[in-house]
């Protein structure tokens, strides 16, 4: 039982990331009908928002110590982050919590990037074939990741989680099991809760606000909504921005789990596409469910007991499931009829 629970938990953090990216992909596909291959790059940009924010708050003031010397006889350098010099304890707190606080930077930046991307590029591709949309966003993904590589270098940049969340949480004890049977990294638990909150917020936004209602109506029949005198294009642009924000926030919060590097987006994108297809193109619930499902399946497949029976299964399980599902349920788990049928 504990082993089972542990594997489920292990799958949750990766599954959360898949679900968040797939949610954004589906939002974009459902509203604008565009297949966005640059969505992984948006995830990566979000992670680098966290990196940039961390770099800014940990910028150090270098002073030379008047008395002490290094063993080489040069004056000892005293490095103090500016944040600490200016804000004292609050600055220290700022540095410690740089990853969650960086969301304050990531959200507006990603919204801006998303809107700029839709207005500047994607808008011109609505009437073009899906192949062209795939290709141009693929090109954009290359450009974005190369720009990040030029700015931040090619190596992964480790990001610390806030110190109070760095250890392990005794998850078993929380739900009334024996202490120390199911321990799990705290930050991953935080990430899962964060993802659940974001997913809930997006669904609530679509379900319970007028704006969301109009967007849903537009997803069902864009033309009619337009004929009713509603500027649906503007709302869809905002939805693209929202999808970018979801991907960016997912990336920023994921940075303590996986040190960001410039091609992390592509690695996640390929899997997220598989997730979207398994969930059913155009189905938001399907994307989220498939994200968690595949994340958990992957974690079960990487158990040693499973690997002994089927070596290497952990590497291919997701693709295998995708192939099986597409061949048996061509529209995916929860796909709607008439979406991407041609």
């Amino acid at each position, binding site marked *: 039982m504990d082993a089972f629970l542990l594997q489920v938990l292990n799958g949750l953090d990766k599954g959360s990331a898949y679900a968040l990216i797939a949610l954004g992909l589906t939002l974009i596909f459902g509203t604008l009908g565009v*297949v966005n291959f640059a969505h992984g790059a948006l995830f990566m940009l979000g992670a680098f928002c966290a990196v940039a924010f961390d770099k800014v708050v940990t910028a150090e003031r270098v002073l030379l110590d008047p008395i002490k010397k290094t063993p080489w006889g040069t004056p000892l350098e005293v490095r103090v982050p500016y944040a600490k010099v200016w804000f004292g304890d609050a600055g220290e707190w700022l540095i410690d919590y740089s990853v969650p606080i960086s969301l304050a930077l990531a959200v507006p930046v990603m919204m801006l990037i998303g809107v700029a991307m839709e207005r500047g*590029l994607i808008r*011109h591709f609505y009437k*073009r074939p*899906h*192949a*062209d949309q*795939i*290709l*141009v966003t*693929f*090109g*954009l*993904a*290359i*450009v974005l990741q*190369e*720009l990040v*590589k*030029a700015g931040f270098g*090619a190596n992964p940049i480790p990001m610390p989680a806030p110190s109070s969340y760095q250890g392990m949480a005794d998850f078993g004890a929380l739900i009334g099991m024996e202490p120390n049977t199911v321990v799990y990294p705290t930050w991953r638990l935080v990430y899962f809760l964060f993802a659940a909150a974001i997913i809930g917020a997006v669904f609530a936004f679509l379900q319970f606000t007028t704006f969301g209602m109009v967007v849903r109506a537009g997803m069902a029949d864009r033309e009619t909504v337009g004929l009713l005198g509603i500027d649906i294009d503007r709302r869809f642009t905002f939805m693209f921005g929202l999808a970018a924000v979801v991907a960016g926030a997912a990336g920023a919060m994921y940075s303590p789990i996986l040190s960001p590097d410039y091609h992390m987006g*592509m690695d996640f994108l*390929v899997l997220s*596409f*598989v997730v979207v*297809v398994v969930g059913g*193109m155009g189905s938001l619930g399907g994307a989220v469910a498939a994200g968690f499902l595949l994340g958990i399946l992957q974690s079960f497949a990487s158990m040693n007991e499973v690997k002994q029976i089927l*070596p*290497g299964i952990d*590497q*291919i399980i997701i*693709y*295998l499931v*995708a*192939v099986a599902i*597409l*061949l048996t349920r*061509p529209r995916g788990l929860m796909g709607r009829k008439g979406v*991407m*049928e*041609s």
Partner: protein
Amino acid sequence: MTNLNAADRLLLLLFAVAVLAGPVILAPFGAGYPDLLQKFAIYGLFAIGFNILFGLTGYLSFGHAAFLGVGSYAAVWAFKLLSMNVLPAIVFAVLLGGLFALLIGYVSLRRSGIYFSILTLAFAQMSYNMAYSVLTPLTNGETGLQIALDDPRILDGAGQSGGLPLTNLFGLPMNQTWESELLGMTVQFNVGFYLCAAVLILGFYAALRIFRSPFGLMLRALKSNQNRLNYTGVNTRPYALAAFVISGMYAGLAGGLLAATDPLAGAERMQWTASGEVVLMTILGGAGTLLGPVLGAGMIKYFEAILSAINKAELSDLLSFLPDALREPLVSVLALFVGEGWHLTLGVIFMAIVIFLPGGLVEGARRAMRLFSRGASDAPSEERPAK
């Protein structure tokens, strides 16, 4: 070369001459060395094959690198087990590439559009991951599959001694190069390149025949309206599968040639970035055209070789005629696009092509020609009032 009209015969002839004279033509551009020339020919072949699928049927495969990788592994195994002669290796690579494509194509082609792209991508990633993990006895994992001294080589293994044997064509080693002076340049004629060139010309001829055949016409019909074909009572799947297998065989062939010129196969050849690269080549040159893919492959490999070799200091030298105040920022901006960052250039060019010139370079050339010929036809009309 029967059944080809005069224009096609001329095209084929010009293509053959241009390819065979490649070392001479490309020498002034700094691309006349065997390694790069071989890459031109091999990736040209890869792109021609991809174009038969994507350009004619419109099925966008994101997993073609898998067949290239399989071809490479097959060829290296042929070198290890049979002989160092490249001929059996290449045949083996083509067959295995085709077989693999048959398996993957049979499953993937049950879906179309984006689903097909994702399915091929999933299969390619699966092969890539398996080549790294479970199949290590077959692929030698991260190290890559290499030939070794104690390989059996049942056909010509006996009596060899000393260093590692070289890949050869009936005794003619692949890396043999004759150099000669021509118009003040050193021109290198390399056996490996000429093998690739011969195969490229054959491959181009085959593609030409497919483009002009009823089969090719059917593939185009598949692209323009598959539903209508189905309603007419045509079962389209065998046609699409045939195109898929043919393009997989081309990819296997390219992989086999890669191994023939350098007997080493690694899993990174199967990674999806490699699949993306062949898509880029085909689009850049012009999907659905005969010459486009070869041009695109040549362009990308050329820029890769030239741009990735430039560094900041050279850039600074190149722009030394500019005043310092202007040069410094310009160099730092341009430095993003060369050396390590040449992929950025690739991405920008690619986006520009997809946005402004969906037909690729060939389409661009055609537009330029039309502009030119319209200018020519305008000229007489101006004279007319004078008459």
